């Protein structure tokens, strides 16, 4: 059950330019959370920004009652979040949303682009915990903007891509994805990243006939289903409909999603 609680900052550091790693003590959230869920964070005690900001749970440590977030500075909210110090308290609502669902005996391939790697780490951890094999393809812009790689490498096989080839394979995550799927080792894709990437990954999943779960983003006001502000278009039996990213998602089966044109 979601709740509003104060999380105490245990660690807060800049990993690479504008990318921060924030560890919080929040036992009640950690206890209930599953991979793919998120929290709504009050980033400032002023009206600037007015709204809470959603961040995926990047680690879920049920034993120590800790969660972590990985975030990139974009606007007012994330900028003021950087000012939070160790021992400060952050007002959190969570865990929110429907996370990834793990079919029994899944052989998963995780695909993350940039900040989209955030929710894949707890998923990888869970897969490992359950003794299920997986591979992860993580895409970054350049070697200077690679972060949290080791955390993934501890858990399983990782393929890295960079746009400029400064680390790992040069190019997009879709290249190694197609290659790996060709091996027919995998029966499910979990993807999170920019919409254009997700759209391409879905198309590839379709062409290989593999299930694909995508984690979407949307501008949110409440984060718990009350405002209907965060919708994306999905296919239902009755035709296209607007689904709430915050409660019906953020994880959707890629075949349900109606992607934007272009």
């Amino acid at each position: 059950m979601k709740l509003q609680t104060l999380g105490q900052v245990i660690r807060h550091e800049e990993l690479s330019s504008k990318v921060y790693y924030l560890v919080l003590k929040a036992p009640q959230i950690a206890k209930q959370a599953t991979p793919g869920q998120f929290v709504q964070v009050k980033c400032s005690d002023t009206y600037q920004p007015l709204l809470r900001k959603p961040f995926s749970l990047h680690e879920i440590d049920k034993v120590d009652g800790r969660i972590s977030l990985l975030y990139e500075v974009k606007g007012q909210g994330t900028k003021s979040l950087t000012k939070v110090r160790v021992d400060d308290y952050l007002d959190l609502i969570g865990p929110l949303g429907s996370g990834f669902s793990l079919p029994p005996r899944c052989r998963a391939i995780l695909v993350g682009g940039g900040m989209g790697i955030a929710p894949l780490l707890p998923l990888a951890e869970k897969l490992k915990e359950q003794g299920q094999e997986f591979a992860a393809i993580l895409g970054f812009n350049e070697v200077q903007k690679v972060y949290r790689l080791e955390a993934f490498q501890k858990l399983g096989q990782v393929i890295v891509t960079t746009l400029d080839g400064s680390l790992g394979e040069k190019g997009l995550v879709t290249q190694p994805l197609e290659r790996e799927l060709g091996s027919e080792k995998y029966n499910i894709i979990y993807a999170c990243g920019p919409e254009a990437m997700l759209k391409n990954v879905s198309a590839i999943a379709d062409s290989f006939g593999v299930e694909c779960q995508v984690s979407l983003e949307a501008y949110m006001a409440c984060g718990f289903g009350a405002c209907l502000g965060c919708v994306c278009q999905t296919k239902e039996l009755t035709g296209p409909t607007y689904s709430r990213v915050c409660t019906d998602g953020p994880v959707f089966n890629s075949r349900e999603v109606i992607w934007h044109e272009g």
Partner: protein
Amino acid sequence: MKVKMEVDIGGLKLQNPVLTASGTFGSGQEYLPFIDLNRLGGVVVKGLTLLPKAGNPPPRLIETPSGLLNAIGLQNPGVDYFIENILPELTSYQTKFIVNISGNTPEEYGVLAQKLSVPGVAALEVNISCPNVKAGGLVFGTDPDLVAEVISVVKGHTNLPVIAKLSPNVTDIQEIARAAEEAGADAISLINTLLGMAIDVETRKPVLGNIVGGLSGPAIKPIALRMVWQVAQAVKIPIIGMGGIVSAQDALEFILAGANAIAIGTGNFINPRVTMEVIAGLEEYCQKTKTEDISHLVGLANPLKMR
């Protein structure tokens, strides 16, 4: 000292004057993890239409300085679905549920009122800020004659208390309020959102899928308060004040201006417990100022208030 917090809003009896604003509180159930619904003055349910409505294409939200622009477009499952599937779930709570309705024609409002005059619905809030297809894309809430027509039709189809919810996008809010009162409205609620927009300078397009949206939140509080102040000087029926309330002090400003009850919208997104904190804060202020009945505060800052 025990403070009397109960208020009577045109026949709608509330245990305290704190309501939730329509469209920001779902049907109330979305807030169960955070608060005890039974402690609320009442819940105003998300706006309903006769037929299900898909709503506007996203993006539907964008923040502005101390404000929120929304263009939800009244997404809702339709009145019949509400009555069959949602209303029964609400009857287990002691709080009052007020249903917000929107129609394309006065007749539609009548049908909605009739259908919703069932046990479990405590009152109707008539949203007259939506497009009026008959009058060619105009908005009911900006024309006193149309306001009167809609309210009369609704009154003719229900015995529930009828609350007219006014649009702030008008030259003369007093004229609109008087039209609603004369047509038989039992109470007035205001304000709905102010029409606004935002443009993305990169794409050079409006940010919202619907181009324009409604502005809510602390940014609009001074305007909302002024309108409550003016309407309190124009009508005798009770007023539910809203627009940017996020604290007990904000709520008090509205009450002192002439509101008999208040509603909180956008504030719930930031702090889902805000309604509970406002109720406690109002009680505390009454105690501190030795006010036995919260209604004694209504309009104290407004010497020209009617009644």
